């Protein structure tokens, strides 16, 4: 047969009195405080970590900062010059200027004397050379 509400309340009431009589052993408080002292744990408010965190952020930003941009290659163009491609190390005018100006120009039939001269038509050149050869033979 199960209990009714009144019997259960009466039982719980007695259990409550006994339950609340129980107190922590006197050694508990001392154990907690001594335990914290012997383990060396100290209270450190969270805001004490702020300066350290700020220094860490600055250090990371300094390390990750990109290298300074080179000066503008085309002075006078301002910001637009940054969009232009960098000047190549060996430019075409520099290659042409390797040959001294006083160098004699040698011309052979069918071979251009300079890279600046347009190439002759191979068909025409071959025909002219053939005619010269035939004249010499005759």
């Amino acid at each position, binding site marked *: *047969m*199960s*209990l*009714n*509400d009144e*019997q*259960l309340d009466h*039982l*719980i009431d*007695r*259990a*409550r009195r*006994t*339950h*609340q009589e*129980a*107190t*922590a*052993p006197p*050694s*508990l*408080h001392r*154990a*907690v*405080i001594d*335990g*914290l002292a012997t383990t060396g*744990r100290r*209270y*450190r*408010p*969270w805001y004490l970590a702020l300066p350290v965190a700020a220094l860490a952020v600055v250090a990371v930003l300094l390390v990750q900062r990109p290298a300074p941009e080179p000066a503008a290659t085309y002075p006078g163009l301002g910001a637009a010059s940054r969009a232009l491609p960098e000047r190549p190390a060996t430019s075409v005018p520099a290659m042409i200027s390797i040959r001294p100006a006083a160098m004699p120009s040698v011309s052979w039939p069918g071979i251009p004397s300079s890279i600046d001269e347009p190439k002759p038509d191979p068909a025409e050149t071959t025909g002219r050379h053939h005619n010269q050869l035939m004249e010499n033979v005759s």
Partner: protein
Amino acid sequence: MCMRDDERTDEQLLRAFHAGDSLAFSALVRRHQDAVFRLCQRWLFQTEQAEDAAQEVFTRAFGALPRFRFRAKPFTWLYRTTRLVCHEFNRERQHAALPESEAGRQDRSADTQDALEQLSQALQKLPARQREVMTLRFLEEFSVAETADLMGCRQGTVKALTFKARERLKVLIRS
């Protein structure tokens, strides 16, 4: 003027501790050690383990104080730490909780002992949430609202759990 520890609220003690008053934590321990110890005893069923668990609760609370943001009541926070620690202690033991320590029974009359023994054993057979609600509502005498706050649930849930627990206890404890 320095107020006495027992005149300050939990919040005031914690704020004083945050401001550097190292004695405020000691006062908090003294204020709540009995309740924490009783709850540990109720969940662990052994006095020695309850004492160890209570010590662990306060040690963890001390470590977590820098992160306390006063969003919950200090005792609510302490209670949840207590519950967590007791669950961990129970998990470590890996066996059914014992009824009570021998030392706890010595100076009680046979009648009281029988009644408490019956209730204690019946409480052990309840599901964890029902046991928790019975402990908080009827043994520690928290209100429905306070119990809901401590357990992190709605008041309606507390009432429903209380009803189910009482019905179950009536059946488990034979008259």
